[in-house]
């Protein structure tokens, strides 16, 4: 069972058929809510914006931005929220092809000493609006 539950609240994603869609170069602002199941003495809580490839080829990827939003104790059963703001680069765009897919995501990770780090992934789409 996970040591914490996460909830993402993104501000101003473009309203499209794909949820959480952003223009290249846009600013992603939002709030991450974390509710630890017990007291966690963590090294850090980090939020990352990253992309990676999936498909036939070996995986390539890059962490674009990483923000450390908390250090120290997270009290059990108490919700704690972290505001964040990150700029999406101009490229690469999200892509779904025959052999190659390019996926963007926001990742939250609680770095625990000598334990599996609880993490949460929020998929986003980075592409210019059609038309």
């Amino acid at each position, binding site marked *: 069972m996970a040591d914490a539950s996460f909830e993402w609240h993104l501000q101003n994603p473009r309203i499209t058929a794909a949820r959480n869609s952003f223009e*290249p170069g846009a600013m992603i602002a939002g709030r991450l809510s974390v509710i630890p199941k017990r007291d966690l003495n963590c090294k850090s809580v980090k939020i990352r914006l990253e992309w990676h*490839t999936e*498909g*036939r*080829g*070996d*995986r*390539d990827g890059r962490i674009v931005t990483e923000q450390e939003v908390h250090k120290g104790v997270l009290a059990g059963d108490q919700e704690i929220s972290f505001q964040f703001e990150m700029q999406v680069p*101009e*490229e*690469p*765009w999200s*892509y779904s*092809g*025959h*052999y*190659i897919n*390019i996926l963007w995501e926001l990742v939250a990770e609680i770095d625990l000493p000598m334990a599996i780090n609880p993490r949460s992934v929020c998929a986003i789409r980075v592409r*210019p609006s*059609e*038309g």
Partner: protein
Amino acid sequence: MLKKLSPGSKKIESRGCGIFFGLFLAGSAFPGLVALVRILSDDPESEWVTSGISIFFVAACIVIGLAVIAVNVISWISEARIGKPEVSINAESVRVGDGFSVNYSQTFRQKTEVTKIRMSLIKRESATFSAGTDTTTVTHDEPAGEFEAPPKLFEAGEKLNFSRGMKIPAGGMHTFRTKHNEISWLVRVKVDITGWPDYSEEFEVRVLAGRVAG
């Protein structure tokens, strides 16, 4: 402003490798064939069945080696016959959704009967993966536009020159290049010549991230 496109160098490299491989195969098998024939002629009592099988395999290596050399040399001559085409586009950079004009120019060195000239715009995905010690690259081509010139008999020194409008689709993708994954846009030119192997060359068009407004 015209921007001249450079042909890919992979074909030249692979042709050189092909000729080298053919020379290596035929060259390394040839002394074996000479030695076997000498043994058989010096010692008529020797085992003919075993020696015959050996001769067959050694001779097969030589034939395959010579065939590989011949295919590559004939292609080379074919290219030399028609001369190198020059391909340029009327833009310094191209973005997703951009239309652009591809200009094709070629002077035929010798009298050549061309049955077809096909120019295509293609999006290519190249994915490289490793399994154990093997590394494999697979590619997938998706055509985005095509143009065919009619058949014609070209005299030596005659020039073929035409322009054609092409477009990177609005829902397309910019050029993307990482260690194992690549998305590229290419103008592929294929010239079918009567009696000779087809001539084919690819020219990369770099497509920048950014979409044309409207």
